[in-house]
């Protein structure tokens, strides 16, 4: 069709791919209801929406992972139907999933050409593959040696390898599902540079992110989904953050403010000179001489980039991993030598960062997950009491407001936010005095985020809990925390009160201040 000209100048901004009245049902659940969605040539279209709004389903349909129940996909004016991702790729549509699909044991070159090896006379033509890989990497301004094993690369670099792979199969449309969720600010910068670069080469991008501010800096168009419907569409110039949030959740949202109106107690948790060695680099410390004291009823936020040592600090305080030096005091008693189980018994718990890997047992039900850490509370002699377990589980479900079909429901049936609440509920069921939370808001939608923060804030105000949570979103520091501690390269870089500004915090963390 003449409308879709090949001339880049003219084509810029024209619709290259569109979804028309796409609906998708799973049984009687309607994940998508008559959604219209356009991808613009050489531009970034960002899809906003809470967990469960239908973003991933829509992207899976566009990339051929699944087929729509009704509606059609139009590529450059022609209706198309993809029965598989390979078919979509042949048409130039690639998707980069949140969980990267690289083989960590293989090198960059082999990953780029995985499944499409260039075969010459004497088998695979490694020289040619290396040359093409090097060229791709240079085009992306990320000169990674093609022979580097992928497991040696930082996450951000691995993502670039995925992008290189997509480019090597001539993708014109690239779908990126939450590409920045695990990247540090500097890695995000690199990724955004690559995205701008791709745009200038005529690649159209679809972008999904929970980091709204970040997405706003890169996008040209914004589409908002809510409950399987498209609720709003606008070009970048016409919108702001508030517009997105309003359309996503249907109301104004606020992550809360530090609870007040009560007296804080004495210091409950004291961390003194904690140093954690780097397992991969001998002689280096991932946590370097960190001291911190938290009072009962106080909420402390630890802000830092990826690799600043937040996770390692919290894990070593909770009892996992080895401390090279320093000690941890709980109620003035040294607990540095206690096991994780003993620390939980003493009232110190950790809600880990990666709930799939460290938080949940997928083979067990919601109820069994919730009661896992507090089995002792409903055990008499050798046997557990089902009646008392029901109590523990029921209380947890109502205390942390988990939306579930019941305690017997499978963990996988819950949304990300509710899964996170299960992990929090499980640790809360042990009646702790100190709660450490490593990135409690990771990968959950803004509504669930606000609810998690409200729980923490209530816990501190009403039960005198000492709360320490870490985050990589500066906006979250300025919500419920009484005190903000910034970590940078394993050290404590700065400490702020409630009146800190985003700029101050980001500057202290070593992050470039976003202009």
């Amino acid at each position: 069709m003449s409308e879709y000209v090949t001339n880049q100048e003219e084509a810029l901004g024209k619709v290259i791919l569109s979804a028309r009245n796409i609906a998708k049902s799973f049984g009687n659940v309607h994940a998508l209801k008559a959604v219209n969605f356009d991808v613009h040539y050489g531009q970034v279209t960002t899809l906003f929406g809470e967990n469960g709004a239908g973003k991933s389903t829509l992207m899976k349909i566009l990339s051929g992972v699944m087929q729509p129940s009704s509606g059609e996909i139009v590529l450059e004016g022609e209706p198309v139907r993809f029965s598989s991702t390979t078919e979509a790729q042949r048409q130039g549509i690639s998707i980069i999933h949140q969980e990267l699909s690289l083989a960590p044991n293989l090198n960059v070159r082999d990953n780029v050409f995985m499944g499409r090896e260039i075969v010459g006379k004497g088998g695979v033509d490694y020289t040619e593959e290396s040359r093409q890989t090097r060229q791709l990497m240079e085009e992306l301004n990320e000169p990674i040696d093609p022979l580097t094993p992928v497991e040696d690369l930082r996450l951000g670099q691995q993502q670039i390898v995925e992008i290189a792979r997509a480019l090597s199969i001539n993708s014109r449309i690239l779908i990126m599902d939450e590409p920045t969720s695990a990247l540090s600010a500097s890695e995000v910068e690199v990724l955004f540079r690559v995205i701008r670069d791709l745009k200038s080469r005529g690649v159209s991008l679809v972008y999904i992110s929970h980091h709204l501010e970040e997405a706003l800096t890169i996008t040209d168009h914004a589409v908002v989904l809510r409950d399987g419907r498209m609720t709003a569409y606008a070009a970048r110039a016409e919108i702001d953050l508030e517009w997105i949030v309003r359309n996503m959740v249907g109301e104004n949202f606020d992550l809360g403010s530090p609870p007040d109106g009560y007296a804080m107690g004495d210091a409950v948790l004291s961390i003194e000179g904690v140093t954690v060695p780097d397992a991969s680099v001998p002689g280096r410390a991932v946590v370097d001489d960190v001291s911190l004291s938290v009072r009962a009823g106080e909420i402390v936020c630890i802000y830092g980039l990826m690799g600043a040592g937040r996770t390692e600090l919290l894990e070593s305080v909770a009892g996992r991993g080895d401390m090279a030096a320093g000690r941890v005091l709980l109620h003035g008693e040294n607990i540095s030598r206690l096991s994780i189980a003993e620390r939980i018994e003493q009232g110190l718990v950790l809600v880990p960062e990666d709930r799939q890997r460290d938080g949940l047992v997928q083979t067990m039900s919601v109820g069994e997950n919730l009661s896992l850490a507090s089995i002792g509370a409903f055990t008499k002699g050798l046997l557990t009491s089902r009646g008392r377990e029901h109590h523990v589980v029921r209380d947890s479900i109502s205390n942390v407001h988990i939306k579930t079909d019941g305690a017997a429901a499978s963990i996988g049936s819950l949304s990300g936010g509710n899964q996170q609440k299960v992990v929090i509920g499980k640790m809360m069921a042990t009646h702790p005095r100190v709660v450490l939370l490593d990135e409690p808001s990771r990968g959950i939608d803004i509504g669930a985020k606000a609810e998690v923060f409200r729980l923490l804030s209530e816990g501190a105000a009403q039960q005198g809990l000492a709360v320490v949570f870490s985050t990589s979103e500066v906006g979250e520091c300025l919500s419920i925390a009484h005190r903000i501690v910034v970590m940078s390269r394993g050290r404590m870089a700065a400490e702020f009160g409630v009146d800190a500004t985003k700029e101050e915090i980001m500057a202290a963390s070593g992050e470039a201040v976003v202009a």
Partner: protein
Amino acid sequence: MSDVSQDNGNGRGKLFGGDFDIKRALLEGRAFFALIAIIVIFSILSPVYFSTSNFLTMSSHVAIFGLLSLGMLLVILTGGIDLSVGSTLGLAGVFAGFLMQGVSFEILGVVFYPPVWVVVILTCGLGALVGAINGVLIAYFKVPAFVATLGLLYVARGVALLMTDGLTYNNLGGSPELGNTGFDWLGFNRLLGVPVGVWVLAAVAILCVLALSRTPFGRWVYSTGGNARAAELSGVPVKRVQVLVYVLSGICAAIAGLVLSSQLTSAGPTAGTTYELTAIAGVVIGGAALSGGRGNVRGTLLGAFVIGFLSDGLVIIGVSSYWQTVFTGAVIILAVLLNSIQYSGRKTQQASSDGKTTSPQSESATERSPVSGSTAGNAGTQS
């Protein structure tokens, strides 16, 4: 929503049957239906198959595999594997035989004949020791379970052969003068008409059901197999649990060794060769996942009965032992095939009900709760 009235998720609930649902019953009860089919087919083919005495004889054979399978189940639930149980069984039998011959203390110039209950305790202790070595190697020295138990498979067998110089102890009866009679009571004799070995199996099975469903240890076993990292961070003593399941597996193997040598009234160093594979087969036919976290006692017992009743049936109708091997293998493959069909079925269901999580879900819950309401809707489109 805070309905906790049906709190019997994976494993625990199924142990006791729980509430029934036809589809789930058919899928999960496939081992049961296979057993029924085996009984019906062989009853038609042979007039002697369907009789109480034959069932009792077959059950006493099943007791051996059943005991090994129960120990194996505990190990497999934590995500491990125990290849050493067959050898442990043989070693336990030989050790018991050795004790029954009397232990001579040359310095004192006396021969000590331990009574049977002491023999039983010492033999179980030996099984526990083998298991403890397995467990410590695996939990603390991070040796892969497959390799550690493979090593013990050789070591235990070798020790058994060394102890007897390859010969078999035939005199296990003891004598009244020496006060060590009663060994035949362990498996050879009958109690209320039922072979003692079957009673032993029943007792161990009940203990396993109780341990898995009603003790913290049981929950620890399931959570260690489901996600060891999450279990550890929840305060589960993962390493101790791992050591303990291998110890229990070793004890089960030792008990099986005692029962078997009592049944045969002899103890040979090669007894139980390849039985570890039969035990694993029983667990797998019973629907447990080798990846850990899923499985139960009921299924495992059914699995052991399927294998036992099948191979005995083939013997009764006179099929050659070569063909028996082929049939047994085919049944195992069929069982695993059904397992994977069940799991892939669940995966499809899951792809629709959860966008992000790739790990398999708790079967009971998935099948029991129809996809409905807002939670399912949320999960279905998680982005």
